[in-house]
């Protein structure tokens, strides 16, 4: 990625982008643009941020992070898709793997039953 594309992607001021790019500090965090947000909602968060003496952006970042807890059904569906890509594991093998992982023991592979 050249400095121009980096500038456009990060939306940093041009000088700041060039500086970050030169130093190799290419750490891109996610960004979201929320359209059609009611002015009163924004004002509520702006006043709350002011009271806490930090920026509106920081306030919104905190609120979004605190609520980023996936639901149980979401987590279960994601885990199911991962399970579909692995083998069925018999109890002996599961115990051996668990022991190897937690106690540092060796793995005694058993044939799948």
């Amino acid at each position, binding site marked *: 990625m050249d400095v121009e594309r980096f500038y456009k992607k990060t939306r940093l001021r041009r000088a700041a982008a060039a500086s970050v790019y030169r130093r190799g500090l290419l750490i891109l965090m996610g960004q979201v643009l929320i359209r059609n947000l009611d002015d009163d909602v924004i004002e509520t968060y702006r006043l709350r941020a002011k009271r806490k003496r930090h920026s509106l952006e920081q306030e919104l970042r905190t609120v979004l992070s605190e609520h980023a807890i*996936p639901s*149980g059904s979401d*987590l279960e569906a994601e*885990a199911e898709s991962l399970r579909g*890509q692995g083998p069925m594991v018999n109890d002996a093998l*599961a115990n051996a*793997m668990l022991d190897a*992982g*937690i106690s540092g023991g060796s793995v005694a*592979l058993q044939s799948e039953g």
Partner: protein
Amino acid sequence: MSSNDQQTRFVIDASVVVPWYLDQSLTPISLLFLQRLEHCQAPGIISAHVSQVLWSYCQEDLLSGAVGTAALRHFRRAMNHKITPSEELADRALEISLDLRLSPPLCLYFALAERQEADLVTAFQPFHEAVRGTAYAGMVTDLRSFL
């Protein structure tokens, strides 16, 4: 005490987590804990244990590196707010380890369960063997007992 603390009924270990990602006889019961994570906590060391077990499966070519990595990422998202730093539990874990003759890192689970007045739910046999006949026996529940 946070609201999370008040809801905690179970301390879980890698033996509860790994069946989320690899089909085995304990998978259906372990998924009940995934659905009810608001009642669960774990000490920070669980991340290393889950990672180690997944790595063992990868080493034996039973799991691809990509799936192992995705599973670990999923675990971190799921347990994001449910992990207690091991440092907070270290002193008590050492005391328990002297009682149980079990290594201090493993006793972090007991220290957390004791602090939260929660059950340590596990299918890891050394935990059950270590507490047999001790005052800690009532603290440990076999994951299989929920079947």
